């Protein structure tokens, strides 16, 4: 499937990208909110890894811009867990909330794949 990774931290993008590609998914990377929004609109992805705090547009702002997105699943990621949790993420239109730092990237990937089963 087609996966959009929006995160300003290059290592996060790289690791997610590597792990997803290893599982045979197509990955598009975006380094900030604006770029992510553009990519999302250009080709609507099946799955989006969306960071909360980013330069330009934040994750929730991107979600707001996109509006209803019935064909895309969204996983919201945050390194500052205090402000967000699963509930607030779902209210914003995300399917899953993942706090950073990840304990195990493969567990995250399988959780994401689980959304489609």
């Amino acid at each position: 499937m087609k996966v959009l990774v929006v995160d300003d931290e290059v290592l996060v993008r790289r690791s997610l990208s590597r792990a997803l590609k290893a599982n045979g998914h197509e990955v598009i990377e975006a380094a900030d909110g604006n770029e992510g929004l553009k990519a999302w609109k250009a080709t609507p992805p099946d799955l989006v890894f969306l960071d909360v705090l980013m330069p330009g547009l934040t994750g929730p702002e991107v979600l707001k811009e996109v509006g209803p997105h019935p064909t895309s699943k969204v996983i919201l990621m945050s390194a500052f867990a205090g402000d967000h949790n699963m509930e607030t993420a779902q209210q914003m239109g995300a399917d899953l909330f993942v706090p950073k730092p990840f304990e195990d990237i493969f567990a995250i990937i399988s959780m994401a794949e689980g959304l489609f089963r």
Partner: protein
Amino acid sequence: MWIGNASPIRLPQFFPFQKREVQIIHRASCSEALPLLTTQKFSSILVQQESNDEALKFLVQARQIQPMAPRIFMAEELKEEDVQAGINRAQVYRFVRWPLSERELWAQLEDSLQRHSMFLSRSLLLRESSHQNKQLEALTHSLEEMVEERTQYIEMSHREEAEKLSRERYLIRFIKELASQSSFEEILGILRKELRKFHKLGDPILAYRLGGEKTFFLSFQSGNFTQTESLTTFPFPKTPQIPSPELMRYLANHFGRPFIKAYVVPIELRLTNHLLSDNGEAILCVENSLSEKETIPFVEFMNDRMRLLSMALDRVLLENQLSSFSYRWEKTFDGMRDPIAIVDLEFQIVRANRKFSDRFLQHKCYESFAGRTEKCVGCPVPEALAEGHSQTGEIQVNGRVYQVHSYPVLLDGGSRPTNVVNQYVDITQSRELYLRMLQNEKMGAIGMLAGNIAHELNNPLTGLRSLAQVLLQEAPPDSNLHADLMEIEKATARSQRIIKNLLDFSKGEDQPSQLVTADEIIERTLPMLKSALRIHRTEVDLAAAESNIFVEPHLLQQVVFNLINNACQAMKDPGRLRVASRVADQKVIIEIEDTGPGISDEIKNRLFEPFFTTKKEGHGTGLGLSMSKSIIEKFGGTIQFHNVKPHGTCFTIVLPQKSPQ
């Protein structure tokens, strides 16, 4: 006068005697001469004896009528009985034998005249002297009268003088008596005693107002001194007088008995009015049943004493006012929450309120307030004295912090203050609160900083760890690359944990309590103290992993952090730190022990006091241990310490064990 027959001698008309011519009158017989005795005065009478005793009889007559004329009896024959009778009856001057020579005769006459003139002068003298005597007598008499009068006058003025003197003495005694009295009761008592001398007088009543609504009455009721007051006012008369019926009614109403006749005098309150801005007035009222006539000495008596009484009553009233002022001030100061003391240039306490100390006099302020032998550190008094205006400083006394406000007092219009009023405001609590707030803010700031750092670090760490995990999948197992990636993954995992700890540690106060183990807390805390522990050997002996406690983890973490940090700072030289946990009797015990110098007896009691610190200024707030104590007590636990052998201190935290529900 010659009586008889002169022949043979021829009698001249005149006889010279003492430069004058003395006339000689001759009569032949006594019967012829007798009438002459009453019509003429004779200087001398010579009688010749006749045949019968006519001559003697004549001489007796002559003696009676003209005693001053010396009598000469002439006879031819001088018989003894004739001489005797002549001397006895007629006091005859000379007896002469007739006839005799002319010369002899003239000598006898001369003698006789001489005698007469002597008599004359004598009688003159006598008359003169008797006249003088009379004058003298008169003089003496008038003099006596004058003396008498004078004496009477002197006696009178003497009496008057004595009266005046005794009156004055009386007044002086009165003044003296009044001056030594200090209460209305005593002064009115003296007046009462004085008034007793007049009968028909009642006891004195003093009424006064001090500017307020109330009128005070001081009186004797059935012999006892009584003070009453009234809320209705009546204008006091301004001059001594018999009061108006209205005033009498007013008094009667107040005392609830009839007032028939009285006398009132206004009392001048000079001193009191100085203090009360002319609002005080007073009158003295004496009831009486004196007649018109008896009133005069009484009014005089009162006039004599009114000024004195006024002065004395004024003085007492002033004293009462002053002492009530001073009493009010004293009560005000005593009622104040803060200790207040007035000290002089030598820190000697002049006055102080009750809060300051109960035993302050004859002490210096630092002796009685702080129990010190020299002035407190931070005392603002010297500065206040030098600057002449108020200064503020902070002193510490027995674990309390006082903000001292020193207000210099300028007395007598001088330019240099001689006293300072010190107000001691206990700011221990507010300062503690302030420092706690500061601490909270600091922790809050650290928390925010930690949050930011955590976010900034977590992103790349996430990337690092995840990438390492991805690469681990790709790297051939057992290869060096795999092993290296493994180390990177572990290191990032450890970094993540430290960041998480830091986040927990610096969380604000309002975190819920939760079930944790003491071991967990200790393990989480130790990594944050790595640099402090670097030079010391650390022994960790944890044996409470199975027992839960119910605490706010970040707070307990702060306590453990504090205690370990203190222990490290106590050991100047590299030492040994032992951190242990165990369970005993449903309690979880944490022990933190160092090999420092231990805690001296002097500071043992003060260790948990807020702001108590042995660290240099700026290196500690002195709040760490006191906050630790309050945190542990909040969790239902205790914190104690004891010195250990050979040297060092062991802090013991005891917390109740909590089983999960």
